C-alpha cells in the first residue's frame, strides 16, 4: 500500500483571501479504494483545500498530482476531466430543473443533431436511481419538490454516474435523517470496494472513525497531521482538532 503511487497528491497547497491564509502549505494524499477524512472546525480550511481539487478555487501555490502526474485544475470542467467528482455540502442543484437535468448539467446527452435529449437523460436517471435509491419516483418534478434525502441522492447520482475515480464528499450527511445517513454509509463502502478514492469532509468524529481509513486534521489553515484511524482514539482526534496537537506516539 505504501509504495504504490497515490491516486491524488496535493502538495504544499496555499490559498489566501485578502490577508487571511485560508490554506497554508498543506499536503495531503489519497489512494485508490481509500477513504480519507478531513476534520476541523468551521473555517479550518478543509472546504477551501478541497475546492482547489474540485476546481472551484484556484490555488496561490502548490501542485496537484493525479496518479503521479501533475494536473492542471483551473475550473470545475478541468477537475471533471480527471474524473474528480464533488458532492457539495449545498448539493449545488438547480432547484427549478428536474432530477435528470441536474444529473447531466454541463454534460447533457445530445441527439445526433446536437440537441438536448431529455428523454434519454430521464431514462439514464431512472436506471441509476433504481440502484442508488429505488424509492425515488419524481423524475419530472423540479428538485425543489424533493425531500432532503432525495435531493442528496440526485447529487450523489451525479457524482457516481460519470465514473468518478476520485470522489469528494463535503458533509454528505449533514442534512439527512438516520436512515438516509445509513444509505450514504453503505454507498461509501460500495464505492470504496470499486476502487474509488474518497475525500470525506465532516464535522462528525464518529462518522469519520467509522467510514475512513485515514484522517487528516486541519486547524487555522494548517495541517495538524494525518493519522491511520486504527492508530488513534476519538480523544486523540479531538485534541488535534481543538488544540492542534499531534497525538504523542511511542517511538517505533
Amino acid at each position, binding site marked *: 500500500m505504501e509504495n504504490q503511487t497515490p491516486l491524488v497528491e496535493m502538495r504544499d497547497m496555499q490559498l489566501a483571501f485578502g490577508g487571511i491564509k485560508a490554506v497554508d502549505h498543506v499536503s495531503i494524499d489519497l489512494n485508490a479504494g481509500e477513504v480519507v477524512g478531513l476534520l476541523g472546525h468551521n473555517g479550518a480550511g478543509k472546504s477551501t483545500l478541497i475546492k482547489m481539487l*474540485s*476546481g*472551484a478555487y484556484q490555488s496561490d501555490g502548490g501542485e496537484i498530482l493525479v496518479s503521479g502526474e501533475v494536473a492542471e485544475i483551473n*475550473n*470545475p*470542467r478541468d477537475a*471533471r476531466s480527471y474524473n474528480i467528482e*464533488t458532492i*457539495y455540502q*449545498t*448539493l*449545488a*442543484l*438547480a*432547484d*427549478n*430543473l428536474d432530477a435528470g*437535468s*441536474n444529473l447531466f*448539467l*454541463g*454534460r*447533457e446527452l*445530445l441527439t445526433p443533431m446536437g*440537441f*438536448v435529449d431529455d*428523454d*434519454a437523460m*430521464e*431514462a439514464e436517471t431512472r436506471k441509476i436511481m433504481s440502484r442508488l435509491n429505488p424509492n425515488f419516483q419524481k423524475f419530472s418534478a*423540479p428538485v*425543489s*419538490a424533493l425531500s432532503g434525502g432525495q435531493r442528496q441522492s440526485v447529487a450523489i447520482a451525479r457524482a457516481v454516474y460519470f465514473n468518478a475515480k476520485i470522489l469528494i464528499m463535503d458533509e454528505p450527511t449533514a442534512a439527512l435523517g438516520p436512515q438516509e445517513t445509513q444509505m450514504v454509509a453503505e454507498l461509501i463502502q460500495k464505492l470504496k470496494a470499486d476502487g474509488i478514492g474518497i475525500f470525506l469532509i465532516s464535522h462528525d468524529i464518529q462518522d469519520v472513525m467509522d467510514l475512513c481509513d485515514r484522517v487528516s486534521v486541519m486547524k487555522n489553515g494548517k495541517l495538524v497531521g494525518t493519522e491511520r484511524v486504527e492508530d488513534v482514539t476519538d480523544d486523540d482526534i479531538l485534541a488535534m482538532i481543538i488544540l492542534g496537537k499531534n497525538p504523542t506516539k511511542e517511538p517505533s
Partner: protein
Amino acid sequence: MTKSRQSYISSLGIDGRLLGMIGALLALWIMFDFFTGGRFITPRNLFNLSVQTASVAVMATGMVFVIVTRNIDLSVGSLLGFIGMMMGAFQVHFLPDLVGGGHWSIWMITCVFGIVLGGAIGSFQGWVIGYLTVPAFIVTLGGFLVWRGGAWWVTSGQTVAPLDTVFKLLGGGVEGTLGETMSWVLGALATIAALCLLFLSRKRKKAHGFLVKPFWAEISVAAIIGTVIIGYAAFMNAYPVPARAAKRIYESKGMEVPADGSTLVYGIAIPVVILLVVAFFMTFTAKRTKFGRYVFATGGNPEAAELSGINTKMLTVKIFALMGALTAVAAIIASARLGSADNNLGNLDELRVIAAAVIGGTALTGGFGTIHGAILGALIMQSLQSGMAMVGVDAPLQSIVVGVVLMLAVYVDIVYRRRAGL
C-alpha cells in the same frame, strides 16, 4: 379539500398557468366586444391587434432569457429607437449610393445590418455585465440613456422617410401580408408541424417506456391547436382589403379588377409570421439546446451552474447578444410599420416588454419563464390597451388600469407558484 385542490393544480402543471392566461385573454376580448358593441372580435381588429403586438412580443421572448437569469434589460426601447434610426439612415442615405436607389437587395442588407448591430451592442452590454460585473440594472439604465441620445444623433433628430418599399412590407400594411392562398398554406403547414411534433414526442416517450398522456387527451390538445391555427388563418382571410387599395394592387400587378365583385383579403400579416418564426426559434432554444438549458440552470442556481462547469459570464454575453438581435428584429417591424424612422421609435417599450414577460409568468427571482407565456402576456397587454382605447377610456385611466393589472398578474402568479409548491 385543500389537498385535493392542490394535487389538482399541480397535476395540471404548467398547463394550468397557460389555461389561466388564455382564459383571461378570452374574458378580456369578450368583455371589450360587449362594450364596443361587437367591434372588438372582428377580423379587422384582431388583424391590427396581432400586428401591434408583434414588435413587443418579439422582444419579450428575449426578455424571458434575460429575466430568467436574474438580469433585466431597461435599454430595449431606446435600443430599438437607435437601431431603427440607423437602419433608416442606412437604407435611405447610404445604400442607394452603393447599390442604386430602389434596388431589390436594400431591404435584406438593411435587415442583416440591423441584426448584426443589435447583436454587437447587446454583446457589449452583456460583456460589461458578465465580465466587468456591473449590475444589469445599471448597465442597461445607462444604455437606456445612451441609445436614446444616440438615436437623435444619427440624423440630428430628423425623421428618416420614406423607407424602402419592400422593407415597409415587413411592417404589415395593406400589402404586407401573405394574402389568401399563402395564409391557408401557412395555417396548414403550421398545423401539420404542430401535430408531427406532438406525436413524435409521444412516440419517443413510449419508446423509453415512460408514462404518456391518455390518447384522448393527446387528440384533444391536437384538435385545439389545429383549430386555433386554422381559425386564425380563416379570420385573417375574412378581412377584405378596401376597394380602392385592392384596385391599386391589381393595377400594380397589371391585372384586371374582377368584375364579379369579389375582392382581395388581407390574410396573415408579415410581422405575425416573423413573430411565429421567432417564437418557434426561441422555444426550441429554451427547451432543446444546451444554451437554453444553461440559461434556466443559471437562473435557478448560479453557483450550481458554475460548479457544473458552465461559463456563466460568457452565457450572459450570449443572452444579451440575443436580446439585442431580437430588439433589431422588433425595430425592423416597428419602423417598417410606420414607414419612417423617428426619434420616438420604441419609446417606453422596455416597460411594455418587461410587463409582457412578467404577466406571462417570468419570475424576477429567476429560473422560471416560458416563451409562449411572454407572447401571451404581450397580447394581453395590447388587448387591454387597444380595448380601452376603443371603449373610450381616458388615457390617464388606461395607464392606471394597466399598472394595476400588472401588479395583480404577478400576485396571482406568486399564489399559483406557492400552491404548486414551486
